[in-house]
């Protein structure tokens, strides 16, 4: 859908690299001191506002319901009730939800990666009948919300006896065009000469893909892994439809179930919410640059 944007983005990325390489740092820093200070001040205020909800989650997560209902609620915790982080584990199948979320995210990543890397390469570099038509068809579904196809998909999951199973969540969501689009755009930028050279050396198409192209695709693989993991980890509507048995819940579905269970006792609820996003925050902290690169490379989805 946005091939133009992609080419723009790719040139942009190289432009950034070049600019960073050739520009002396001093020139970049040559701004009036007052301007820099103002910008820092604005950024600090904005960061405080944006991060306050996160802080408040942490603050609330160690509070008792008494402490939270006596106004005014102190901005800093008076007592630290760490049991909020441990008790729900024994009251609810939180460990099961965590395990389900991990299994679903990992399976989704593995299959998405395999399917999209192969198909992305085929659509980018190999000529086969109806290639462009098929690609167009797939890409046209890029923005279709789950709610459009949920009724027949749900029926399909029932017919396949996948209700309340991890596969019922994983399989239907593999039909997501984003990964394929991202992979194809990446492989288009691999020079044809490289592939031809490998072919002339006698390597078949699969071998060329496996031992010449894939080793060059680490940034693509990293972005695909991270985005797929994030989306499947955070996914809500589809698991909500497929999973009815509390033991089969994923973390987001389990959390919304906990809202009713805890009603006004927000301490444990927010403690569990924090635990559920912690893996994502860690992934983001360690692989930050791939989030940004991924967005830039694909022409921003």
């Amino acid at each position: 859908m946005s091939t133009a944007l992609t080419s723009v983005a790719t040139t942009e990325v190289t432009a950034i690299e070049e600019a960073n390489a050739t520009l002396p740092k001093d020139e970049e820093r040559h701004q009036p001191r007052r301007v820099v200070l103002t910008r820092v001040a604005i950024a600090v205020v904005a960061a405080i506002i944006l991060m306050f909800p996160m802080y408040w989650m942490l603050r609330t997560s160690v509070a008792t319901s008494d402490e939270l209902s006596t106004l005014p609620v102190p901005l800093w915790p008076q007592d630290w009730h760490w049991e909020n982080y441990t008790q729900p584990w024994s009251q609810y199948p939180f460990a099961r939800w965590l395990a389900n979320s991990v299994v679903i995210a990992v399976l989704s990543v593995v299959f998405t990666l395999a399917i999209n890397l192969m198909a992305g390469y085929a659509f980018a570099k190999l000529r086969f009948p109806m290639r462009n038509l098929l690609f167009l068809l797939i890409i046209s579904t890029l923005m279709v919300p789950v709610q459009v196809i949920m009724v027949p998909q749900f029926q399909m999951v029932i017919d396949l006896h996948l209700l309340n199973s991890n596969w019922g969540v994983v399989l239907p969501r593999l039909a997501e065009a984003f990964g394929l689009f991202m992979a194809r755009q990446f492989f288009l930028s691999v020079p044809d000469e490289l592939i031809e050279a490998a072919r002339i050396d006698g390597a078949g198409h699969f071998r060329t893909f496996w031992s010449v192209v894939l080793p060059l695709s680490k940034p693509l693989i990293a972005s695909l892994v991270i985005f797929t993991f994030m989306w499947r980890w955070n996914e809500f509507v589809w698991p909500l439809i497929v999973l009815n048995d509390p033991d089969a819940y994923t973390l987001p579905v389990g959390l919304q179930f906990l809202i009713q269970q805890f009603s006004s006792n927000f301490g444990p609820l927010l403690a569990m919410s924090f635990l559920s996003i912690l893996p994502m925050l860690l992934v983001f902290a360690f692989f930050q640059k791939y989030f940004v690169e991924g967005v830039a490379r694909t022409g921003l989805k």
Partner: protein
Amino acid sequence: MTTVVTRRRAPEPPVRAGGRRRVASAALKAERRAGLLMASPALLVFTLFMFIPLALTFWYSLQRYSGFGRMRFIGLDNYAAIINDATFWTASLNTLLYTALTVPIGIVCGLSAALLLNRWMPARGLFRALFYVPVVISGVASGIIFLRLFDPIVGILNQMLTTIGLPAIDWQGNGTWALVSIILVSTWQGIGFGMVVYLAALQGIPREVYEAGTVDGAVGWKRFIHITWPLLRPTTFFLVVYSIIGSFQVFDVVYVLTRGGPGTSTTFLVQYAYDQGFNQRRQGYAAAIGVIIYLVVLVFTVLQWRFSKSRDDA
């Protein structure tokens, strides 16, 4: 790389024309086979879980069906019912209103953040990361966080408002304020994405453009209006279309924060479709709403397509 190729090609023994063609067609066949084989898992998955369901959605939309038992063909009755369904129109209007407000706010916030953090400053990387954090958090967790913040009685937001002498806001009982709360959360979630997209675009503007502008006296606000903003137009267009389509899909936060209420004041089309299909068990009706959502999304997808194509040709 090219030199390698030509050198390798040179010592090839001369082949008769017919033989070469046969070799070529064999190679073409191999390529075709490999291509189809490698694309087949994706084609299978998309056929099973996207194309067939899409077609079936149209079929289901012509049925009366509870999800169990027998389907009954009722032609266009679901669509006729939708036209007279006040809740459907409320949901459409809410979606429209939400989109009309969220998209511009998101653009302004994303662009401001990008402009703020584009040039060098201390801890720039940290600020960028912090602004992006809400993007990676699940909608359900975000909803729970804000459920606590927006609580009308013990929520910290109202506590702060009353401390500085403002009246407390009924975030959950008042329809307008409930919609505002959803918009606030969506904005919070989206700033990071807009920022990253705009940052990529800003980095792509060549330094010389600005230098030439400086000579012509374009500095500060003038520079933004006459140089930066026009150059960012393709990015802005992309973000607008992307956000419009995205705002048709807002579900998780609404489900947790307001459940579509009070009444139907924060019910959007996707909520309504879900509610009809899985709470009211009117799956045919839900499918009909799905078809309508699909058509709307399709219009915007084509719009974006046409735009990026015309830009390609230009």
